[in-house]
């Protein structure tokens, strides 16, 4: 075992030679972090493309579309897009980029290590994730296409096979296998993060001196370790029901399209929901916690002020992580689960709003009295706070079972989780990208273009998702392929709620189109961005003490010693308005005036 006392020298592996070892099967956490980021980038554009087709079909179900066999999208094709949109976005974007992307790249550096604890496991975790994406995406290409049961794959719809509907044959099986592979990859990553954080911190870097980004990656990794095993088990059981004739999730006596299902009995559809959501709720905190860490970090850096209530922020993240395992039943109030347990889950869910509120107050407290610089990274962090408030508050409605009765499975839920995951978490990723791009690549992304991207996106996402609350209140069910099947939706007459959907679709087309600005800026920055120095933002944490981009072994053999916390900004009496974590006390003393 390596302790940080020996400076982690055993983790210095010789710089690789050859293109394959350097860029494909690299053991370097920085390369792996970028690989995860690129996987997420490809996935997010794929996921957005799927949603463009969804938004078109919702509003114009009979329109002729390119790329669709037969010209007009069928309801099952819509549902396949919906299923894959959710699966790709939740798993391949929100569970990769914030944690395995930026976490992989910056955790070792921010704690003063030369690499992760297990570099080979790290490389394997990326390539396993890659394989899981390929397997899942291949569901599009089998006969009958991708599954139609949603990213939540409720049973028995997802367990019965082809007979339950198109896409429920090979497509669903590939989805389950792909997801199981993803679980394995996530477990590998979680192990690595935890071992690294516990074992490889540089001398002087106590837990309470860690940047909040590291705390976020730490809590997220623990959540991942505990939750993904349950999903893996659930996938295994579902796969067995599908191919081995078991009945974990399938009760007896079913008749589907006049055919009796005689080879399954005794199972419980609710069991799947319990297993899935026991994973699924921690999963959404896995998606948001790294973004919270980044927000705290970026807000402090560009307000030139310490994080307000650092200790409370740490406890809040730990509280959110722990309580996240106690609330899964709030997805199941209407499911047929015991209504008495609904009461318990509800109180726990309202409680989890408390640490979230604390974090929000502390973000505002960090800004209060600051000296705010509006870099693009900062603007996305500010946007994150606004979006997190909006998205979080709608959760309070859904957390109460009685109020959930009319709102469950409507667009109110869609609004809630998109604002939190599909926007706030994404803003965390954007903020991190603009912030750390100069360190990773030695060049800047264009700040002006970045700000244009920010404004278009910030306005756009509110235009898309704020109206959805009203759709939900009016009773608009979710996962409906179009609005023509129930009179009050107004789809046949293009009236009422259809008008709102039309507005949302137009807003979505514009906002999604605007993301190309980000893509162009990213690529242009890689090729010809303005050169970046070691610490262009005058930040305090260890990544800003090494070259941009960093050398292979990060600290060139010289593991730093840390002398203070991560947010020493605007310390009174100092010449500069920031003090690096590793600045020698004697030098700080000398600079004092």
């Amino acid at each position, binding site marked *: 075992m390596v302790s940080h006392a020996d400076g982690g020298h055993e983790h210095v592996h010789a710089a690789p030679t050859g293109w394959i070892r350097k860029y494909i099967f690299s053991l370097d956490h920085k390369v792996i972090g970028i690989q995860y980021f690129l996987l997420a980038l490809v996935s997010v554009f794929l996921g957005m493309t799927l949603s463009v087709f969804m938004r078109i079909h919702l509003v114009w179900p009979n329109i002729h579309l390119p790329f669709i066999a037969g010209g007009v999208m069928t309801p099952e094709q819509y549902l396949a897009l919906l299923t894959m949109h959710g699966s790709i976005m939740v798993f391949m974007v929100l569970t990769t980029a914030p944690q395995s992307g930026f976490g992989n790249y910056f955790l070792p550096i921010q704690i003063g290590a030369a690499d992760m604890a297990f570099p080979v496991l790290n490389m394997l975790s990326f390539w396993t994730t890659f394989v899981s994406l390929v397997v899942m995406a291949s569901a599009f290409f089998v006969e009958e296409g991708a599954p139609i049961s949603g990213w939540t794959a409720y049973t028995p719809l997802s367990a019965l096979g082809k007979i339950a*509907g198109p896409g429920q044959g090979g497509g669903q099986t590939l989805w389950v296998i792909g997801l199981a592979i993803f679980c394995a990859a996530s477990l590998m990553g979680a192990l690595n993060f935890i071992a690294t954080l516990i074992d490889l911190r540089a001398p002087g870097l106590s837990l309470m001196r860690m940047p909040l980004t590291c705390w976020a990656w730490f809590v997220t990794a623990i959540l991942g370790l505990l939750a993904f095993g349950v999903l893996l088990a659930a996938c295994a059981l579902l796969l067995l029901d599908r191919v081995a004739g078991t009945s974990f999730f399938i009760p007896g006596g079913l008749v589907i399209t*006049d055919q009796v299902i005689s080879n399954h009995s005794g199972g419980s559809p609710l069991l799947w929901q319990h297993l899935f959501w026991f994973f699924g709720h921690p999963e959404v905190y896995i998606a948001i916690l790294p973004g919270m860490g980044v927000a705290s970090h970026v807000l402090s850096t560009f307000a030139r002020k310490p994080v307000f209530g650092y200790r409370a922020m740490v406890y809040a993240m730990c509280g959110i992580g722990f309580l996240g395992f106690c609330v899964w039943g709030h997805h199941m109030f209407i499911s047929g689960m015991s209504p008495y347990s609904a009461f318990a889950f509800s109180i726990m869910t309202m409680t989890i709003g408390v640490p979230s509120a604390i974090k929000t107050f502390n973000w505002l407290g960090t800004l209060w009295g600051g000296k*705010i610089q509006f870099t693009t990274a900062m603007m996305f962090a500010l946007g994150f706070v606004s979006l997190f408030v909006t998205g979080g*508050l709608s959760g309070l409605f859904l*957390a109460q079972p009685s*109020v959930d009765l009319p709102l469950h499975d409507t667009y109110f839920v869609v609004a809630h989780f998109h604002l939190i995951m599909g926007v706030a978490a994404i803003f965390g990723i954007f903020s991190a990208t603009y912030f750390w791009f100069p360190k990773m690549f030695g060049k800047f992304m264009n700040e002006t273009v970045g700000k244009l991207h920010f404004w278009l996106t910030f306005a756009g996402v509110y235009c898309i998702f704020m109206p959805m609350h009203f759709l939900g209140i009016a009773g608009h*069910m979710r996962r409906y392929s179009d609005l023509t099947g129930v009179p009050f939706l107004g789809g046949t007459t293009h009236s009422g709620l259809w008008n709102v959907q039309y507005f949302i679709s137009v807003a979505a087309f514009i906002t999604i189109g605007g993301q190309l600005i980000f893509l162009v800026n990213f690529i242009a920055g890689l090729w010809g961005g303005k050169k970046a120095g070691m610490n262009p933002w005058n930040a305090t944490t260890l990544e800003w003490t090494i070259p941009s981009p960093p050398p292979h072994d990060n600290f060139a053999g010289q593991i730093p010693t840390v002398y203070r916390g991560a947010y020493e900004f605007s310390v009174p009496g100092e010449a500069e308005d920031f003090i690096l974590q590793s600045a020698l006390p004697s030098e700080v003393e000398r600079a004092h005036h």
Partner: protein
Amino acid sequence: MQKRKSSSAGSTTVAAALAVFLLAFTGITVYLFITKPWWFPKPITDVGVLIDSQFHRTLIITGVVFVLAQLGLAWVIFKYRDHGQKALYFEGNNAFEVAWTLATIVLFVGLGLYAESAWATVHFEPAQAGDLQIEVTGQQFTWNFRYAGPDGKFGMLKPAMVSASTGNPLGLDRNDPEAKDDIVTPILGVPVNREVELLIRSQDVTHSFFVRELRIKQDAVPGMIIHMHFTATETGEYDLACAELCGLGHYKMSSKLKVMTDAEFAEWLKVQVANQ
């Protein structure tokens, strides 16, 4: 200390734009929640009134927090933009932390506890004896409703006898004496002001029974019979929709709830009997 020009670092323009955006967005949102251009339809149950009032309570509380937070954010963004000042150096304030933690606990948990009475009305109170029992069956992609008929007993259903194409979607065994007088209908007819107890079930995958005006939703889970009771207080016809993804026809798996006077209901039932 020399006052810095508005560089892009702390640009007044950017700060103002952000603050104005947040103000505008907050204003538009509050306006929409007050004017309610798209909203719940009027409830037709007493529990619906309870649920609406809890929704309203939650809306007020979250609305106040929403406005304060977004406006607070707008204010700090504008007031503390970099215009040459030095940032304050403080790491927190324990008194504030304790205060707002306690306030949030009381507010959120209090709100949650308050919500329980409406839930209890729906789920903890049993249906009264003598109510009208109606079995609700969801299947891909239609709803069927069964009334027990004059004998007050539901007859046997046999999976092997299910045949939608020959008019027996539930698999009713008409040879069973208790099933002889059962009435199966495609729409849900109920008498007004009389307690109705739904026995919700599914034949294939999970569906969900939802009528907006009742404010009631309940998943129809295969392998389970879930009871749900309500008393409709206004006559009329209301959309009944499926609220759990059940396959390609999920979007059109709709039916109607028809609330009728006692006389109308009796008449309607007679017509349904004739159609068996």
